[in-house]
C-alpha cells in the first residue's frame, strides 16, 4: 500500500507541475504538500483502485480507444445527417441490454464509450445485474449498438485482467487481496 501511495503522490505532483504556470521550488513544495494531503484524505479508496496495467493490456486499451475515435467520427457524421437531412430519420429507442461484462470498472468504461459516441447515451446501469438502459437516436444506431465491437474489446480486456488476477492469486505474488478483489470487480458501488 505504501508503494501505491507514493506512486499516487508522484502522479499528483506531476499533474500539478503540468498544469502550473512555471516549475520552481515554490510550486514543487505546494504540489508535494497538496499531493500528500490528497492521498491521505482519500486513503480509504486505496483498495478500490486497480493495479497498473501491463503492456499487453495497455495495447488493448489503446486499440479500444483508437476504435472509439473511429466510431465517434462515424457517429458524428450519422447524427449530422439525421439533423440536417433526416436520413436516417429520428426514431428514438430505449434499448435495454445486458452486455457480457461483469466488473464495475469495465461497465463504467463501456458506459463512457457509449455516451461519448453521439447517437447513444447510457441512461442507467444496474450495478447488481449489469443491465444497461441506452437511449439511441435512430433504429440504425440501435442495430449497430447490439453488435458493437467495443463491447467485445472491453469484454476481452476484462477477461484478460481476470486471468492475470487469478494467476497472481494462485502463485501468491500479491500480498494485497483487497486490491485484487477490486481489480476483479468484486466491490459493489454503494450508490446507484
Amino acid at each position, binding site marked *: 500500500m505504501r508503494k501505491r501511495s507514493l506512486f499516487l503522490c508522484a502522479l499528483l505532483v506531476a*499533474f500539478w507541475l*503540468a*498544469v502550473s504556470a512555471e516549475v520552481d521550488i515554490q510550486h514543487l513544495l505546494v504540489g508535494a504538500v497538496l499531493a500528500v494531503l490528497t492521498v491521505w484524505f482519500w486513503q480509504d479508496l486505496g483498495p478500490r483502485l486497480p493495479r497498473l496495467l501491463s503492456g499487453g493490456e495497455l495495447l488493448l486499451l489503446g486499440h479500444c480507444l483508437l476504435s472509439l475515435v473511429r466510431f*465517434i*467520427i462515424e457517429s*458524428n457524421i450519422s*447524427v*449530422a445527417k439525421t*439533423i*440536417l437531412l433526416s436520413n436516417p430519420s*429520428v*426514431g*428514438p*429507442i*430505449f*434499448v*435495454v*441490454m*445486458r*452486455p*457480457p461484462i461483469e466488473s464495475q470498472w469495465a461497465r463504467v468504461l463501456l*458506459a*463512457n464509450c457509449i*455516451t*461519448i*459516441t*453521439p*447517437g*447513444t*447515451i*447510457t*441512461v*442507467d446501469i444496474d450495478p447488481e445485474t449489469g443491465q444497461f*438502459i*441506452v*437511449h439511441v*437516436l435512430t433504429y440504425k444506431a*440501435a442495430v449497430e*449498438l*447490439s*453488435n458493437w465491437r467495443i*463491447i467485445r474489446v472491453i469484454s476481452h480486456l476484462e477477461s484478460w485482467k481476470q486471468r492475470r488476477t487469478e494467476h497472481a492469486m494462485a502463485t501468491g505474488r500479491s500480498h494485497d487481496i483487497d486490491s485484487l478483489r477490486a481489480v476483479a470487480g468484486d466491490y459493489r458501488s454503494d450508490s446507484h
Partner: protein
Amino acid sequence: MIRLLANLCFAGSLLAFAIGTLGLFRLPDPYTRLHGVGMGDTLGVGLAGLGLLLLSPTWALRVKLLIVLALFWTINPTMTHLVAKAGLIHGVYPVEGTKVIKGQG
C-alpha cells in the same frame, strides 16, 4: 501549412457546434437533443483542441491541452449520463413514439 491545417480544424469544429446547435431546435425531446449537443462536445471540442495543439509553441502547452481534452472527454459523458438519468427519474417524458426494445443479452 500548419496554420492552414489548424484553420481547417477550427472550421470543422465550428461546423460541428453549428449542427449540434441546430439539433437543439430540430430534435423533438430533451433526450434526443442530448445527442445533438454531443456532436459539439466530441468532434467540436476535439477539432478545436487539435487546432490549438497544432498552433502551440511549446510542449508544456501541448501537454496541458491534452490533459484538458482528456478531462473533458471523461467528464462530458458522465454529465450527459447524469442529465439523462435525472430526466428519467424526474418524469421527463420522451417524445411520443419512443420505443423500448430488449437488446443483446
